[in-house]
């Protein structure tokens, strides 16, 4: 049991590339911390630095009150679950789990107790004699988890452990990982690029972009009050609408009227006939596309002044400029080509500076 603290951690490669540009956060004892960000943002590198698989260029990593910058991975009292599981292909499930314990010189009966216990928890007892290649993806994943928990480490590190599983299994394993972590109450750091995994697993969410921390906090707090437009667009699916008041003709009064960027979550927009509610925003849209997923309906609309231009997304996962996404409950909705008005109340608006680096409300 331990807390993990990162103090101004940096990583620069010999070719001058700065992968991590000064990261600072602390994970409390027993907490589940999720590092999330687009690929290439440095989240895996950061995790590997905590594990000791990458050197630290400057700053300090502290596990349980001990600075571990110069400590070998095996002596950091951590266990890691890899994306491709990294099971020893020639060893049985039992030996895969027991290997690390034997290397530490643990007595045979103790090794056996721990492995049997982990196998029982993970429902692997019937498969202890099998080789990894005889297991399904989900079972391999559980062996990798087993290898981590038999160690009874201070910290679990997960490097995108679910990304090789199919969608259904991923959800099941996600719940299992969370339950297991709750029961063992071991401090955990989990890396993922899937914001849904991040939201559902995290006690503390660390959103990263380009080697820097964008925002740290409780997942719902981050969802409700994203600190930058990057976080606003990254957290939440479908993504938040980000509009520039100047282009979209939004007039904001009172505090925050200087905002250069306005964000509106798709679910905060409603279809209405009249004017915007007190101080809110009204957008006149032409319906371009409709997605009905059953419980709710997504309406993609082009803003009136942009109608006629084809909208092409500049970045994957983000809406193309001029397009606004409205999310309404149920299966009813307008038809394609229809003109609608979407309104959002003032208190649901997220106001940012024009460069998107600072939140104003």
């Amino acid at each position, binding site marked *: 049991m331990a807390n993990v603290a990162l103090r101004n951690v940096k990583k620069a490669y010999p070719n001058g590339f700065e992968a991590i540009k000064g990261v600072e956060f602390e994970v409390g004892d027993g907490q589940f911390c999720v590092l999330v960000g687009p690929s290439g943002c440095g989240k895996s590198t950061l995790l590997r630095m905590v*594990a*000791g*698989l990458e050197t630290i260029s400057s700053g300090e990593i502290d596990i349980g009150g001990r600075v571990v910058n110069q400590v*070998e*991975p*095996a*002596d950091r009292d*951590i*266990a*890691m679950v*890899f*994306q*491709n*599981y*990294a*099971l*020893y*292909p*020639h060893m049985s499930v039992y030996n895969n789990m027991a*290997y*690390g314990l034997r*290397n*530490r010189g643990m007595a045979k009966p103790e090794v056996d107790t721990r492995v049997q216990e982990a196998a029982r928890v993970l429902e692997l007892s019937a498969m202890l004699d099998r080789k990894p*290649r005889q297991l399904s993806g989900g079972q391999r994943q559980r062996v990798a988890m087993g*290898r981590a928990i038999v160690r009874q480490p201070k910290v679990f590190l997960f490097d995108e452990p679910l990304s090789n599983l199919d969608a259904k299994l991923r959800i099941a394993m996600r719940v299992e990982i969370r339950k297991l972590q709750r029961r063992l109450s071991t401090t955990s750091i989990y890396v993922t690029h899937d914001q849904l995994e991040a939201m559902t697993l995290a006690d503390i969410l660390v959103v990263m972009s380009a080697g820097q921390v964008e925002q740290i906090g409780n997942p719902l707090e981050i969802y409700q009050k994203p600190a930058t437009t990057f976080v606003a667009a990254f957290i939440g699916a479908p993504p938040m609408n980000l509009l520039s008041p100047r282009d979209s003709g939004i007039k904001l009064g009172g505090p925050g009227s200087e905002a250069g960027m306005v964000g509106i979550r798709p679910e905060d927009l409603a279809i209405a006939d009249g004017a915007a509610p007190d101080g809110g925003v009204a957008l006149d849209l032409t319906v371009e596309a409709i997605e009905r997923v059953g419980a709710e309906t997504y309406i993609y609309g082009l803003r009136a002044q942009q109608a006629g231009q084809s909208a092409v997304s500049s970045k994957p996962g983000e809406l193309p400029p001029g397009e606004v996404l409205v999310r309404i409950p149920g299966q009813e909705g307008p038809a394609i080509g229809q003109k609608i008005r979407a309104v959002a109340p003032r208190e649901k608006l997220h106001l940012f500076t024009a460069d998107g680096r600072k939140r104003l409300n």
Partner: protein
Amino acid sequence: MVEQEGIRRYVAHVILWTGIIIVAFPVYLAFVASTQDNAAIANGQMSLLPGGHFLETYYQTIFVGTSGSTREPVGNMMFNSMVMALLIAIGKIAISIISAYAVVYFRFPFRMPIFWIIFITLMLPVEVRIYPTYKIVADLHLLDSYAGLSLPLIASATATLLFRQFFMTVPDELLEASRIDGAGPFRFFWDTLLPLSRTNMAALFVILFILGWNQYLWPLLITTRDDMQTIQVGIRKMITTSDALTEWPMVMATAVLAMLPPVFVVVVMQKLFVRGLVETEK
């Protein structure tokens, strides 16, 4: 396999049988000759069916030897060849797997130059460097010894390259998982890399054993004593006789005996050998 119909199937079989006969007939003939009476062979009246001297000839060959220029029993030659082939095969595998491990997994100064030096030795087989190699072996007083027979042939760029290529396909995460599991460089090598290389080692062993067994030029150069002679050199010496008739049945028996160990190695290790060449177990 594609199942073939009617005539095409027969044509295929005819072609295959023709091939088998072309390859197997000389071997069969050697065996037949080894069971015949020497006079019959010398007269050119050799029958195509095995004769009645099988036990006699083979006993004479293995335990006594010819009465010609080499009187060494072939059993002893086979032992020499076996020791040399095993030393070469095992030595080559041991040396090259260790050097490949160093080149792939460790960062040390001049790592790539060292790798290229190993690579360049591919272009320098024994035949090319035979004089300096002989000089070194002679200076080390290793003539007429097993060390002299095998050491100069042990260093192997081919095997080093093969293991290097294999190691580079082993996922890095395995090394990282080992590091977290507290396995140092030696344990990682012994517990993970060696077991994973098993099929590769078997495939190499088959190739290298046969290579070592069939060495001719080098043993011919550095062995002068009859009791250090290898079987390949021995056969040649048996044929040359100064005044007597070449004892063909014994020469042929020796040839048959010389074929047996490589055949045995291939048959025993065939499964592993094929797996080593086609399958990767990762």
